[in-house]
């Protein structure tokens, strides 16, 4: 019995070793930047970050100075704020507009419903590169490039097909009797929308909101194109990528900047993992 158990666990050793090696490969790079962001510039330039483990609890090898430097002198503080200013309206706006449209697609009859919805499904995968030049030109004429309202609108456009598609799926899945009985009771479509449809779709809206938040927060291309690299309005992704150009070898600063930029998504990830996974699964076909 015991012998059997031992042979069994020995035969399973390769499985454990492979899994642990993969897990280490996945976690070590991130630990590397976290450690480096707390080390002194001289140490970072002369020794690998793993050398701290020789003397892990010697607090004299750690500093917070890199963080104060990137926040105050490298524009990361401002950029962090800008990312929030960009991301919050760019998350709320598309979901709001999409839920109205999804409700109409799911429960109202109108000519062209089927073909409009097929166009929507096709738009899910259109590369946003197809839209950059014409929109940028219009934005330049209207004075919207380099402004927050411009990028809010652009992200609303890019997030809309997926939001309508997913909300439609969940609204269409609601029982029809619900709507019938509400109507018999004299409820107007507006009343039904706000007091029945929206509350019932809250889990999907939450997933969608998390996904859109991440997508906008982590976006680089859209911000580069429509904000044109103006430091006053640049989000963290743009600021970090420009630091890579100007501080290429100063790893203690780059790593601190990156770590600041990934804190909000990581908090979202740790606290709302269930919705997060669902949102990511749902968002897998975004264009």
């Amino acid at each position: 019995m015991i012998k059997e158990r031992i042979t069994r666990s020995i035969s399973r050793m390769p499985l454990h070793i492979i899994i642990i090696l993969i897990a280490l490969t996945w976690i070590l790079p991130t630990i590397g930047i976290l450690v480096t962001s707390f080390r002194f510039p001289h140490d970072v330039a002369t020794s690998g970050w793993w050398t701290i483990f020789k003397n892990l609890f010697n607090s004299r090898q750690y500093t917070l100075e890199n963080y104060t430097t990137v926040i105050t002198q490298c524009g990361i503080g401002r950029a962090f704020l800008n990312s929030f200013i960009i991301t919050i309206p760019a998350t709320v706006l598309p979901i709001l507009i999409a839920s109205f449209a999804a409700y109409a697609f799911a429960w109202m009859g109108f000519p062209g419903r089927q073909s409009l919805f097929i166009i929507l499904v096709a738009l899910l995968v259109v590369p946003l590169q197809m839209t950059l030049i014409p929109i940028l030109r219009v934005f330049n004429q209207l004075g919207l490039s380099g402004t927050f309202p411009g990028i809010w609108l652009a992200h609303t456009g890019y997030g809309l097909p997926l939001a309508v598609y997913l909300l439609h799926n969940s609204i269409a899945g609601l029982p029809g009797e619900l709507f019938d009985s509400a109507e018999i009771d004299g409820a107007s479509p507006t009343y039904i929308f706000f007091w029945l449809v929206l509350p019932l779709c809250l889990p999907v809206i939450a997933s969608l909101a998390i996904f859109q938040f991440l997508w906008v927060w982590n976006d680089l291309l859209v911000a580069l194109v429509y904000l044109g690299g103006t430091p006053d309005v640049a989000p963290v992704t743009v600021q970090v990528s420009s630091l890579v150009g100007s501080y290429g070898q100063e790893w203690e600063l780059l790593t601190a900047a990156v770590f600041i930029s990934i804190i909000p998504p990581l908090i979202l990830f740790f606290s709302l993992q269930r919705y997060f996974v669902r949102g990511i699964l749902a968002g897998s076909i975004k264009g």
Partner: protein
Amino acid sequence: MRTKRSTPWLYLGAALAVLAFFLIYPSINTIYLSFFGRNSEKFVGASNYVYAFTNRTMLTALRNNILWVVVFTPLTVFLGLILAVMLDRVKYETTVKFIIFIPMAISFVGASVIWKFVYAYRPPLASQIGLLNAFLGVLHFPPLPWLIKRPWINNLSLIGVGVWVWTGFCMVILSASYKALPRQLLEAARIDGANEWKVFWKVIFPLMMPTITVLITTQLITVLKVFDIVYVMTNGNFGTEVIANRMYKEMFNFRNFGRASTIAVVLLLLVLPMMLINLKRFRERRG
């Protein structure tokens, strides 16, 4: 539902206006612009397309996109599948899944800096601060300039970053699908004397094929548009150019809007098969 004829359009209005302005109009306009010169004034016929398929850097970009497709797509899906199946057999499944999924929350910009640090290169004899070259040193190999050594090492190094980010996504989807498989079927195969290897290839793999196919299409759409990683890590230097980064350069560095539009259209053409597959699947589900 009984509603006034105008009601659906009130609900749809905002969404349709946004879609028309941010996706439909610009896409059509971009196709039109691709037949014009750098300022969109002179009609140039197909000459931008001739450029797109004959220019040396464009050919490199096309080659690299093919490399991304054939390495990134199978690797992420296969690693995700192996992890889903292996992790199902160990007690610490949740922890490892969590670790592998974390990069999904990090922006490509963040991931690029994290890995640029892993790939950091110092000349031989200097102390290596990059994890990979330090590891090579332990094994008594000379350090490698991972991001510079062309044509394969640097491109594969970039693709590695993409794999690091996206494997968790594939793993989560495939794991959900694996756990939904009928267990009796796997047991029956084992009782019939099939070893684990055979069970995997003859039972698990075919049963999960539908999910794998969907995943491959979404991964293809993702990989064809790869931009951030290349932009931040090498900006397409040393023969690592990709289509999306080339479009950005034509647009902002060379100010040639005709060529930039053409490259966007090439991207659309590459994504088109996936769009048709999506539409077909959508119709089947409805029909």
